[in-house]
């Protein structure tokens, strides 16, 4: 009979029950979406910041010492000090290889165009294909490290196309000044040799790169007769925000005890990654690009705090909404409950009936809400971050507990009122 009463309530009051379930679903979906976004936002923002360029630079030891001593820009004093191109692959073999998202070598030289104009030419990787010792493959280069570049004409240089070995990309300012367009052939005369390159694209970077020309590494090495040499490497790595241990280690790894050293080495601090890069690249100094690395942690903390606050507000809001509706829907039934009491139902029977219904509605609502929230989270992910939000399993129990607590807390005062209800009052319509 209990089952028939429940079934009757649900099949013959489908509309009303569905309304309650949907309100619960709305609250639950809001909670699901916000929680998922909150848990994922850290990774997302970190990823986002990584796409905004490198956070570690690697330069030859000689250049680094002199740079630091005289605080000079560029590196005329360090002329002749280079890193070795054949060691580049080793960066992907360090302990934290997985955290190395992208990297690219750089070498530059001054060259003159056919009209005599002087221009700085940068040799680098665009989308360099690498087969790693681990058996994996990687495509890396400035196409990933310079995501903010706006290709105003033509396309990115594509290293997988054999023709593009003799191609280059021209900065917007150079292109405008020299009247260069995508598709043109340009003649570059370097200090040691000359070359003719096809312009495949013109980019607008918004910074000094607009005054440069980007070409494949080998072309620039030819211009300056520096085969096998690179003058710097930019690395984009996922890092753990620094703590006190990391700061001490950054100053001098030898000051750590054996176990501290172990901990530091095996944590993805920017300093330990730099240290590991130095281990594999001969005579190199790897250092964090301080501003980015520091502000990254701060930005992430702030974003996460913001999301937590918004999530709490959303949870409280949906909680209030649900409990209100539940209270109202329970109170609405005072007539029916009064009748049941008059017929002989005791408190336990009434509480059992009302709570069972609420729990069923709550479960239906929570399940619908969870999946709707999943959808919302994806919409947020795609519109804000341009990628899917990873669903965290942890959200399910949180939302479940939330819905149960909120519906029960919402219905307890109502049920208590019902139990105190005097059947004579409702039965005589006073």
């Amino acid at each position, binding site marked *: *009979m*209990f089952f*028939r*009463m429940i079934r*009757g*309530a649900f099949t*013959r*009051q489908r509309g009303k029950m569905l309304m309650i379930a949907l309100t619960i679903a709305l609250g639950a979906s809001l909670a699901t979406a916000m929680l998922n976004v909150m848990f994922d936002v850290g990774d997302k923002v970190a990823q986002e910041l990584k796409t905004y360029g490198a956070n570690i630079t690697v330069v030859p030891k000689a250049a680094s010492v002199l740079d630091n001593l005289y605080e000079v820009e560029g590196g005329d004093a360090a002329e002749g000090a280079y890193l070795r191109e054949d060691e580049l692959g080793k960066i992907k073999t360090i302990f934290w290889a997985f955290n190395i998202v992208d990297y690219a070598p750089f070498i530059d030289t001054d060259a003159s165009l056919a009209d005599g104009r002087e221009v700085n030419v940068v040799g680098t990787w665009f989308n360099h294909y690498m087969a790693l010792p681990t058996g994996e493959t990687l495509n890396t280069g400035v196409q990933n490290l310079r995501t903010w570049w706006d290709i105003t004409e033509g396309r990115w240089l594509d290293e997988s196309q054999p023709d593009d070995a003799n191609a280059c990309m021209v900065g917007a300012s150079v292109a405008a000044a020299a009247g260069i367009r995508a598709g043109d052939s340009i003649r570059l005369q370097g200090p040691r040799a000359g070359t003719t390159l096809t312009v495949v694209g013109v980019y607008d970077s918004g910074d000094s790169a607009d005054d440069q020309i980007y070409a494949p590494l080998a072309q620039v090495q030819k211009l300056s007769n520096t085969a096998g040499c690179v003058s710097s490497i930019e690395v984009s790595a996922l890092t753990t925000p620094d703590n006190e241990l990391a700061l001490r280690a950054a100053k001098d790894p030898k000051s750590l005890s054996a176990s501290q050293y172990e901990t530091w080495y095996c944590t993805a601090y920017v300093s330990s990654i730099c240290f590991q890069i130095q281990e594999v690249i001969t005579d190199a100094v790897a250092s964090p690009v301080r501003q980015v690395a520091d502000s990254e942690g701060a930005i992430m903390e702030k974003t996460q705090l913001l999301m937590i606050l918004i999530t709490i507000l959303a949870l409280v809001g949906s909680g209030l909404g649900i409990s209100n509706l539940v209270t109202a829907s329970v109170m609405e039934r005072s*007539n*029916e409950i009064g*009748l*049941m*009491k*008059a*017929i*002989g*139902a*005791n408190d336990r*029977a009434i509480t059992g009936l009302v709570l069972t219904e609420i729990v069923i509605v709550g479960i239906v609502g929570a399940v619908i809400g969870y999946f709707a929230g999943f959808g919302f989270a994806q919409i947020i992910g795609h519109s804000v971050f341009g990628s899917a939000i990873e669903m965290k399993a942890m959200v399910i129990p949180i939302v479940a507990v939330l819905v149960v607590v909120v519906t029960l807390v919402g219905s307890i005062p109502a049920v208590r009122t019902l139990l105190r209800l*005097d*059947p*004579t009052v409702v*039965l*005589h*319509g006073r």
Partner: protein
Amino acid sequence: MSLLELKDVSKIYGDLHALDKINLKVDTGEWVAIMGPSGSGKSTMMNIIGCMDKPTSGEVLLDGVDISRESAKSLTRIRRDKIGLIFQQFHLVNYLTAVENVMMAQYYHSVPDEKEALRALARVGLADRAKHLPSQLSGGEQQRVCIARALINYPELLLADEPTGNLDEANENVVLDIFSQLHKEGTTLVVVTHDPEVAEVAQRTVTLGHGKIISDKLNEGFKE
């Protein structure tokens, strides 16, 4: 022995004496009509007899038990076991079918038994309406469902507060016929009514006025 006995029962709201030292005996198998103007205390008395309210003072003996001293919990039990209630507004659960409404009373009493519930509906002439929802039934039919529900647990006392108040003449007669049938079977009936025609068919009429019994007489026209 009387099934029901009220001794000096008073119900006082503030300084209003809704019932004022009522003394009344109802024997097993009797059919009593309670009359009186509006506000004279009829419903108040029914609520006290029906274990839904307690008197301010006095004793109410039902089957020899003083129900004015019982806790709310045992009042619920006594009501469930001994009393069948019929209301002016029919009070059915709107999402349960006729037969389910009857079964609900069985459920809160002991165990639901659909066959028996269907027999009870057949007795009030609703065998073919058993699967209808209250909204699909006429007022008279709804009241008959209520009667079937009130009877399903074989109560010792059937209390009806204005059972025909919302019914037309034809339905009123159907209900009165059922009452008379029940009376013949030995059910004790206490029926509150405004309508002299409804009172006339009963065995005995008690008239209230301002919370007091102003007359208590046997009906000469009563036909067994």
